[in-house]
């Protein structure tokens, strides 16, 4: 009898887990489909010369070249092709190392790295989102690159994002930051000029709001993406990332509240990704938006007739923007030597210029960035904005800080809490994490 009971409990456990696994299994399958390896040589069809070279190489490569694998999460075809071209060229240029790149969807990227770290199944190079860099470096999965790369000419924020306690754990791939896009036609129709400070921003946004158009939009999701879009307001007041209940932090939250309350910004922003915000902007529902330069290729393609321009984000006390972009990291204990050799190649001027241009990114190397966009007004503005851009963190527990901050502005925007109360609650969480 007793045995029967035990067996039935065991069966129940199996059953419930089996059902749980049912959904997990599907996800797993999708992963596999998505993460199909795209070796450099099979993607660059059409470029006959490099194709041939690539094939020669891979046949030679199988006879004993070292493997270097890369994980990345860019889903845009143009990005993938550009990376593949650099890899193909590299594989063709020497015979010791064969580099392979693998696409891991962004939503799964952090999960895969975590799982990989605990299971010891990691690539040799990871190209990851810069705010996550500190967390993984703290896990100890990244190799120390101090002194191996010259980052003196790089943007400070970008280098900061991969530096912990003075040790360099990565190399910036490329950078971007947020700026203010505005719809020139709507602005002219309403008789407005481009806002330069917060007062003007509120006024302009209100004036632009009529019928189905709202004045301003920025992604305010309760996650890292939302925090990324909110931090420029906080920093513009002169407050630091960990000072939410300071005068500046409360002021930034109040700005968000004012914009929502006056109707100049749609409350739906808390459910919009940056891509959604861009879609609303190009369909004319939103007159101004905060967004990054990576949207430009899509905007030009989807709405070639839209008359838009880019300006610096309106300031309170100082100009500010949030620094985005990816970093290369070399995995400790992998094929470090091979990975370093490839990175030396990939961070050389010629490759960087090619990658940045095809990505719509700005080079993290100031000397390259300054000459990058001679005749592109929008990109020139972004390059200027970059001088005011700060990195989030770097802190191993940044995701927790980010969660507290994004909760605060979500509470304010939904009217759940007053700015001061939300700021105090966030500060309490942040103080529990940041001891400094």
């Amino acid at each position, binding site marked *: 009898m007793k045995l029967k009971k035990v067996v*039935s*409990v065991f*069966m*129940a*456990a*199996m*059953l*419930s*887990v*089996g*059902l*749980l*696994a049912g*959904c997990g299994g599907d996800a797993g399958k999708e992963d596999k489909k998505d993460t199909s390896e795209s070796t450099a040589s099979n993607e660059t069809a059409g470029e006959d010369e490099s194709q041939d070279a690539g094939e020669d190489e891979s046949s030679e490569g199988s006879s004993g070249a070292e493997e270097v694998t890369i994980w990345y999460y860019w889903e845009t075809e143009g990005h993938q092709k550009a990376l593949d071209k650099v890899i193909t060229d590299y594989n063709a240029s020497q015979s010791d190392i064969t580099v392979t790149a693998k696409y891991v969807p962004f939503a799964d990227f*952090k*999960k895969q790295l*975590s799982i990989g*770290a*605990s299971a010891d199944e990691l690539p040799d190079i990871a190209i990851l989102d810069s705010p996550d860099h500190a*967390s993984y470096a*703290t*896990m*100890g*999965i990244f190799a120390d690159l101090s002194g191996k790369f010259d980052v003196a000419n790089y943007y400070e924020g970008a280098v900061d994002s991969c530096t912990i306690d003075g040790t360099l754990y990565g190399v910036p791939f490329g950078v971007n930051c947020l700026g203010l896009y505005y719809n020139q036609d709507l602005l002219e129709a309403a008789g407005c000029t481009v806002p330069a400070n917060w007062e003007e921003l509120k006024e302009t946004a209100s004036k632009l709001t009529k019928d*189905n158009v*709202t004045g301003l939009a920025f992604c305010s*999701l*309760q*996650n*890292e993406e939302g925090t990324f879009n909110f931090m420029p307001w906080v920093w513009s007041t002169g407050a630091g990332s960990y000072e939410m209940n300071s005068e500046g932090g409360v002021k930034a939250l109040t700005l968000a509240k004012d914009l929502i309350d006056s109707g100049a910004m*749609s*409350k*739906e922003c*808390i*459910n919009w990704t940056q891509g959604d915000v861009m879609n609303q902007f190009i369909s004319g*529902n939103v007159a101004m938006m905060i967004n990054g330069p990576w949207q430009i290729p899509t905007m030009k393609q989807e709405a070639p007739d839209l008359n838009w321009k880019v300006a610096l984000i309106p300031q309170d006390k100082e100009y500010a923007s949030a620094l985005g972009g990816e970093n290369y990291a070399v995995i400790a204990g992998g094929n470090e030597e091979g990975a370093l050799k490839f990175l030396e190649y990939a961070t050389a001027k010629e490759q960087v210029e090619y990658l940045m241009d095809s990505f719509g990114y700005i080079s993290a190397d100031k000397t390259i960035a300054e000459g990058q966009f001679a005749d592109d007004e929008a990109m020139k503005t972004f390059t200027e904005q970059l001088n005011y851009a700060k990195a989030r963190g770097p802190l*191993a*527990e940044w*995701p*927790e800080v980010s*969660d507290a901050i994004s*909760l605060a502005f*979500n*509470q304010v*925007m*939904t009217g*759940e809490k007053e700015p001061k109360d939300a700021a105090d609650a966030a500060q309490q969480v942040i103080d529990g994490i940041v001891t400094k």
Partner: protein
Amino acid sequence: MNQTKKKKLFKYDNVGILFVLPAFLYMLVFVGYPIVKNIILSLQDVTVRTLTADHKPFAGLQNYIDIFQDPVFVKSLVNTLLFTVCCLVLQFIIGFLLALFFNQHFSVSKPVRGLMLIPWMIPITVTALMFKFIFGTDVGILNYILTSLGIISENIDWLTSTNTALFGIICANVWIGIPFNMILISTGLTTIPKELYESASIDGAGKVQTFFKITLPLLRPTIESVLILGFIYTFKVFDLVYVMTGGGPVNSTHMLSTYSYKLSFEMFKYSKGSAVANVLLVILMIVGVFYLRATKEEEE
């Protein structure tokens, strides 16, 4: 000694073990191991700083104590239960009524019943996006219809208000769940012999009486399975919530599954995430016991 053991193993009586062995090993490796591993993880203190360390600090039940004091966890537990019960009741009743309706065998009943299955076949992420558009505040069709009919004067912010977001997700899930309930109950209805209804009508029983005296009692096993399977499917909802609201606004729609994911893979609090997952597991296990008991009774 060894020899005799080997011989014994292959005795005819024990051959059964060999047949069970592959399934047993499979369960042990792919189901048993992860459960045990997850329980161990939830008893340790694994965060960013200790994930790759050789020695992981032991935390005892601290993670469980912490999560039960965490308002977001309590909120997501309540949400999960509320969500499950609401969905189950609504989709069961509507599914049941539709099953009875399509059981009338009118001329297009079969093809229409087939079409009703579409919500069940659409990938959940697609459904989630679709409902996200339907419930949009300024561009959503629901607000448009309600305003046109004069029912509301101002747009309701369905998914961006903490009061109504869960309702939106429940609607989406009910829509998905109706065909599942309908098809299982339809199948159950066909197993009831027609003669019973015929003799009942000869005896002068009315529609309502036949429903409560014949249909319901004979459908009991089917209903039990539908409800319990429905409970398990609904309780572990993830993708729908993840896509529609991501747990927001202000954590008001987090479920145990999404909160566990957030803790583990967004905030790197692996041990707390696994503790939440274990709570989910225990609740599903209890329901699983009921399910096995129900099916066992049926077999006997």
